[in-house]
């Protein structure tokens, strides 16, 4: 077995690395095609994935828990294969394998030194739970429960649940709910812990839905029915194999949970919509343990929308019938550069109104440089090049068929086509030292980015950057570069369509620091958006919080858009957590103010547990 730990360039201690786990659950999906932690796939509890082991090691090394039976099992189940290094380095420049090794060492040393193994005993409730789901799928062992104490929201205080249970059927869920109601036990549903507001952590019982991974295609009705444990990434993969596409958010997000919480949104929402546009039906277990589905007349009307913060959940979503979308073989991605946000906004509005393009999104230089760069250092260098040398502070990502791309060309907008994007991406290291960039900037003097219209510029661009997987992979840890070279030789890794469908890069945004997004639905009104952007920035600056423009995607024929603004913070710094909480509060107040003032602005927190609503009810009521 290859052990990567000692050869790593990463200077962080295992404890520091463990404390910096972003809890994105990306190690639970095979987004690089390099495989997923085998023990995780077998045992299913998050504790057996790298993310769980990171939390477990942090708890052990920080003396928060003792070594338990499950702890030995979890540590022993890691074979130090290094797959998590590939994945975590790709996203966050972190090397978890050394944490895995430290965990093993910690447990082995503890045992060698005669340490007492803490035995967890089944109490009456746990025995009842096990009767429902089977012995292997419920536990109160601290080594498991502690790994459910975090979710994506690092601003919520961690909470260790008393029990974790993994049901496999809706009937089991129904029985569990009835049991918990009878015993007045608090229970919380958890997908992959992608909730930004801390609603996937609680005391009491955590119901982890990850075993429920059924996927049933109904192609004649353009539908796929999924269980609540199916991730966006896995379903997209299955759909793509059959020649379809789904609208999917974060790749590790579980689709049912995603719809439930706030609805699915992506750059494809320009065409595929949001909220109820994305599914046909869904099944639930309500708070009494009874089943209902949305197509029953007697069911609660989840298609409605009420402007209430933190509305109660309608129950547990146990399946959803997701819409499948057609795909044509001429789809391509392009990047359209802009000097100002206003110009970019005008462009996406125009495209959206005219139905040009399948997916549209404005991103800033911070976003694009972070997505493309394999390391933090390089991202910062590349951002400066984009802004200062190429004069590209804004880019619009467009996915469209040949007619859409041709229309944009006819509209007169210069753009980086798919081939140039590939050159740019794999040639990023050359960009850092390219003397000719100053000239390119001067070429834009008369007409911004007009060099992109020069017939052979793409060829010269490629010659100048000498892009290659080898060049790109030279930027990463030396030991990982052969893997990266092989990875970036794969066509999809530089394919804008694939990258937008699977969104594997988006979590790179949290590489420098975890982030808290402010999400708003609002009209594509340049003044309003600039106003929000300025005010978010001022709020963040007042509290010393790093911040940046996230993205904007038009929806509903350009009548509205989704706007994300991001705040970055160190969740190991209690002072910074206090400040980010303040920023979150003030940002929400700002959104509330505008909501009242304009009647057209809706803040994301108000959508919580209303993800099944019709978008019209959300946007226009």
């Amino acid at each position, binding site marked *: 077995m290859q052990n990567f730990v000692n050869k790593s360039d990463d200077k962080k201690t295992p404890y520091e690395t463990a404390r910096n786990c972003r809890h994105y659950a990306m190690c639970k999906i095979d987004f690089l095609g390099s495989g997923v932690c085998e023990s995780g796939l077998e045992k299913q509890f998050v504790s057996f994935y790298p993310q769980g082991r990171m939390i477990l090691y942090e708890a052990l090394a920080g003396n928060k828990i003792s070594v338990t039976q499950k702890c030995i099992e979890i540590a022993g189940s890691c074979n130090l294969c290094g797959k998590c290094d590939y994945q975590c380095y790709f996203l966050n420049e972190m090397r978890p394998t050394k944490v895995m090794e430290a965990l093993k060492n910690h447990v082995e040393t503890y045992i060698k030194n005669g340490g007492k193994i803490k035995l967890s005993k089944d109490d009456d409730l746990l025995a009842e739970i096990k009767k429902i789901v089977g012995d292997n799928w419920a536990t109160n062992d601290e080594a498991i429960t502690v790994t459910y104490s975090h979710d994506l929201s690092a601003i919520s205080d961690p909470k260790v649940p008393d029990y974790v249970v993994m049901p496999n059927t809706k009937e089991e869920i129904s029985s569990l709910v009835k049991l918990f109601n009878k015993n007045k036990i608090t229970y919380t549903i958890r997908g992959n812990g992608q909730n930004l507001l801390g609603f996937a952590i609680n005391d009491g019982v955590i119901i982890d839905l990850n075993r429920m991974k059924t996927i049933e295609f109904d192609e004649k009705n353009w539908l796929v029915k999924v269980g609540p444990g199916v991730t966006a990434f896995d379903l997209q993969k299955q759909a793509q194999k059959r020649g379809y596409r789904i609208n999917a958010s974060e790749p590790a997000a579980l689709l049912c949970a995603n719809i439930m919480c706030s609805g699915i949104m992506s750059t494809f929402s320009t065409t595929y919509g949001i909220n109820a546009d994305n599914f046909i039906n869904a099944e639930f277990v309500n708070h009494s343990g009874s089943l209902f589905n949305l197509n029953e007349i007697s069911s609660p009307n989840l298609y409605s929308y009420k402007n209430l913060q933190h509305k109660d959940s309608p129950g547990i979503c146990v399946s959803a019938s997701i819409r499948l979308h057609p795909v044509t073989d001429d789809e391509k991605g392009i990047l359209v550069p802009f000097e100002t946000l206003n110009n970019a906004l005008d462009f996406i509005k125009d495209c959206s109104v005219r139905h040009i393009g399948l997916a549209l999104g404005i991103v800033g230089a911070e976003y694009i440089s972070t997505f493309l760069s394999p390391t933090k250092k390089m991202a910062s260098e590349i951002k400066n090049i984009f802004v200062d040398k190429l004069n590209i502070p804004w880019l619009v990502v467009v996915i469209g068929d040949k007619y859409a791309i041709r229309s944009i060309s006819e509209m007169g907008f210069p753009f980086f086509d798919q081939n140039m994007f590939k050159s740019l991406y794999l040639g990023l290291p050359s960009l850092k030292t390219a*003397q000719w960039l100053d*000239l390119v900037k001067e*070429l834009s003097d*008369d007409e911004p980015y*007009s060099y992109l219209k*020069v*017939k052979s510029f793409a060829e010269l661009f490629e*010659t100048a950057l*000498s892009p290659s997987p080898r060049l790109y992979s030279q930027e990463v840890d030396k030991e990982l570069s052969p893997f990266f070279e092989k990875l970036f030789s794969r066509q999809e890794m530089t394919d804008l369509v694939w990258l937008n469908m699977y969104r594997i890069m988006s979590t790179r945004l949290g590489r420098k620091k975890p982030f808290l997004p402010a999400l708003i639905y609002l009209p594509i009104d340049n003044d309003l958006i600039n106003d929000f952007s300025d005010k978010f920035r001022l709020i963040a600056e007042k509290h010393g919080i790093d911040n940046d423009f996230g993205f904007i995607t038009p929806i509903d024929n350009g009548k509205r858009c989704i706007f994300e603004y991001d705040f970055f913070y160190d969740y190991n710094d209690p002072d910074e957590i206090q400040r980010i909480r303040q920023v979150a509060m003030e940002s929400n107040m700002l959104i509330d103010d505008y909501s009242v003032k304009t009647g057209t602005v809706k803040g994301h927190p108000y959508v919580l547990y209303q993800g099944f609503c019709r978008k019209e009810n959300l946007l226009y009521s």
Partner: protein
Amino acid sequence: MAGKNKPVIALTGATGFLGSHLMATMLKKGYSIIVLGRTAKNESLKERISRLLQWFGIDRCLDQVTCIDADLSQYNLGIENKEYSRLCSVADYVIHCASDTSFSESKREKVMAANVNNLQGILEFSKNANVSFFHYISTAYVAGTGVTYCKEILSSAKSFTNVYEESKAAAENIISLFCQKNSISLSIIRPSIVYGDSQSGRSLKFNALYFPIRSAQSIRDIYLNDLRNNGGIKATKNGIYIDKDGYLFLPLKIYLPHEGDLNIIPVDYFVNATIKIIENCSQGGIYHLTNNFPTTMKIVAKYYEQLMKVRGVEIIYGPQPDNLLRNPAEELFDRFIEPYRPYLSDNRVFDRTNTSLATDNLNPPEFTYDIFKTCMEYAIEVNWGASIFG
């Protein structure tokens, strides 16, 4: 130390290319200069001037300079009343060198604002200061298009190559009327294309003549890198190779509309001639600081090949054939030189009667290989201006 009996000059554009070189030499000659300029993003006007004087090696002259934060678009140049009055009482001459030199049509509004609309402030200042002379730095190309012999008189041209020329012609007329009305002597100094110092090669700006050279050098470097480090697949595809003498053969056909000249003067000539005009002419007038022996792009191309160890550059006069197949280097180079193309094969001849009289027949040097080499080597040394201040 300021020279006795030398007029006090109010100078705009002192941080620009021509203005800074003019300021440096005038300071060396003992003039006192009031610099009317603006604080930059992270640097005060005084810091900017101080940095420039350091570059010219005349830090000692800083006490001859009075730096005044001024906004030419504002009433009283945005200067507080008391200070404005004080400046009016000391300024003897105005040299108006500030200008937006962009050729871009998309920047028309900005260029016209800077070069035409903003004149009022500095003209009013000249009147209020009761200056005896207003010296305006214009361009030889106010003559416009369609003219072959350009006299040293106000331009009545109706068509221009770009907005810059148009704005300068409009400015000349406005200034002329104003000065006439207010009995201020006026000299209009019209340089052609200015490059660096013919002796040292030093320059603060690297556009105009430099731009095509820099573009060609960049394209050369891209293919050299391809040949040396990446197997030269792209280079070979386009017939680019390193020949037996170690020269890069890079086919670069440059089409220019017709035969013609490239009228360039070095900045040291510009400065010396301008100072002579300022010091010698009591009546004012219009002066062409142009070259009686202009060079051609064929000569510049030859110099470029020699210096950069390149072969394959071809200057072709006449229209570009339809459906001409161009290699990527040619396509990009064409785009690079587009704004400068009208100046690269120019048929205009410039009258220099006034200039010769005012400058005691001072003439710019012929553009030799040595001058080219000195100027380009300096440009490369300072990375075309990127590392000029270290």
